[in-house]
């Protein structure tokens, strides 16, 4: 039962007024996670809120795992108040992470806002090989810049309000990157996580440049393990002879990382 474990909060540190970094020490044996996988995290003891919350693996540490989270609603507000020493129950790692890349791949990683949490371990895995395009609403929402600089081949930042680095969004950065290297895009592989509108725009860019890409999606989840069919998204159907052009696949089980080509927007 190593995918259902108790963990102790060893730190729960505010990064700004609505983002925290949560460090967890597993108290039970835990499966090894892959970049792009996620956890369902218990946020409280009573029945309100009821459901666990989905958070990406941000970093595997010696003691356990870290999660980078945005305080968004009820559940994350409670999570923020949990103190060192609190014990919570966690389900995971769940889903399919980012696929392994061939040696010759030129990885380009897009992170929009809190999407950085999902791709961070992937950037770590590429250990200096990846081009990282990272954008947020404002400069204060760009996290781990020093670490990222050390881990990336090139780190390009942007903000919606121009308060830090370039004004614009990561799709713009991707566009420029493609334009500037249009001759040598063969080995480029794109990995992205961020708001749906960002991914939809990014899909157009990769598709028009014939670049292979994997995107991590979000959907509201109840079980996280494929049982409830609550978290489906439209994926192009490969079944021969089927009328409909799509089928519903589970973000928690077949995803959260999907081949960008297959996603029906």
């Amino acid at each position, binding site marked *: 039962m190593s995918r259902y474990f108790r963990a102790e909060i060893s730190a729960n540190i505010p990064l700004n007024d609505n983002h925290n970094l949560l460090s967890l020490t597993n108290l039970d044996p835990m499966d090894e996670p892959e970049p792009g996988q996620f956890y369902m995290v218990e946020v409280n003891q009573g029945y309100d809120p009821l459901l666990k919350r989905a958070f990406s693996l941000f970093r595997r540490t010696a003691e356990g795992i870290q999660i980078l989270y945005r305080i968004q609603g009820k559940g994350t507000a409670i999570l923020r108040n949990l103190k060192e020493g609190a014990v919570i129950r966690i389900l995971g790692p769940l889903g399919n992470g980012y696929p392994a890349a061939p040696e010759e791949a030129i990885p380009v990683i897009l992170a929009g806002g809190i999407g950085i949490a999902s791709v961070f371990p992937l950037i770590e895995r590429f250990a200096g090989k990846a081009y990282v395009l990272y954008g947020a609403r404002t400069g204060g929402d760009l996290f781990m810049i020093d670490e990222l600089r050390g881990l990336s081949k090139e780190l390009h930042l942007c903000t919606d309000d121009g308060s830090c680095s370039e004004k614009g969004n990561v799709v713009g950065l991707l566009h420029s990157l493609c334009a500037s290297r249009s001759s040598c895009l063969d080995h480029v592989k794109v990995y992205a996580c961020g708001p749906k509108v960002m991914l939809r725009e990014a899909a157009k860019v990769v598709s028009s440049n014939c670049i292979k890409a994997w995107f991590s999606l979000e959907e509201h989840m109840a079980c996280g393990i494929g049982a409830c069919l609550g*978290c489906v998204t439209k994926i192009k159907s490969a079944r021969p002879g089927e009328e409909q052009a799509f089928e519903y696949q589970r973000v928690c089980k077949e995803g959260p990382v999907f081949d960008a080509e297959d996603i029906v927007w």
Partner: protein
Amino acid sequence: MQRISSGRDMTPNLEVTIGSLRLKNPVMTASGTFGYGEEYAEFMDLNALGAIVVKGLSLKPKEGNPPPRIVETASGMLNSIGLQNIGIERFIHDKLPFLRRFDTPVVVNFFGDSVDEYAAATARLDGIDGIHALEMNISCPNKQAGWAVFGTDPKVTCEVVGAVRKRTSLPLIVKLSPNVTDIALMARVAEDSGADALSLINTLTGMAIDIRTRRPKLANIRGGLSGPAIKPVAIRMIYDVFRAVKIPIIGMGGIMNAGDALEFMMAGASAVAVGTANFINPRTAVEVVAGLATFMEREQVKEIRSLTGAAHAG
């Protein structure tokens, strides 16, 4: 709490029977919350369960509703899965072999959008090795009656249950809709039409609106409310139905732990099903089994079935 030593040896007997179905304990899984069993096998020994009830099946696969399909509410959740399922054929070929490996009865939950479809589904499921009982979900829309729900009109309920009953000799469990004025009446109708047992409650129809977008939160607008929020309604309906029928009741609706399961049994349930709780803690069902045994030892209850309807005494 202190465990009272019994003096003599007390091995609590958790066995219950639902019609001709004998269960080693009264804890089942609620349809739609336990997938086809596989998903939970890593978290528990499926042999420890009283029965496994699988996601509702129809003759043909069903695509279900568009997302979002899940909304959390206070102590509950709304779902509008829309009965997505792989269809009976694929279930039999792809999923049932796995379930046959366990010494736990498999109950197939199923539905149709017409009386004929119900009947045909029943005929297909009847006599398949590894299927031990059928649970018919009548909380689903009826094509012939303008998509009104089968389980809300006594005449239609009578017709559809009767048609299914004719097609199978398996134990037939009718799962009632709670969205009715008189649940006891619906229960009697199901009993008179040939049900061997009743399951209740299915989800309450509910809805939520996103005040930012001013649109319903579920793509399908309405959804089914489940979880601890609905437990008081479920307990009341089971209490009322217990007084109205002779056939056994399988109780569900917000069971989170053994205490809740006991409450359902005392209200009148012979067995219980764990639903939404599986999402919160994937081990809930087996923890409920263990909790029932602990309770029985502490309170010197020899037979779990003696608790069924206990709240009606006196």
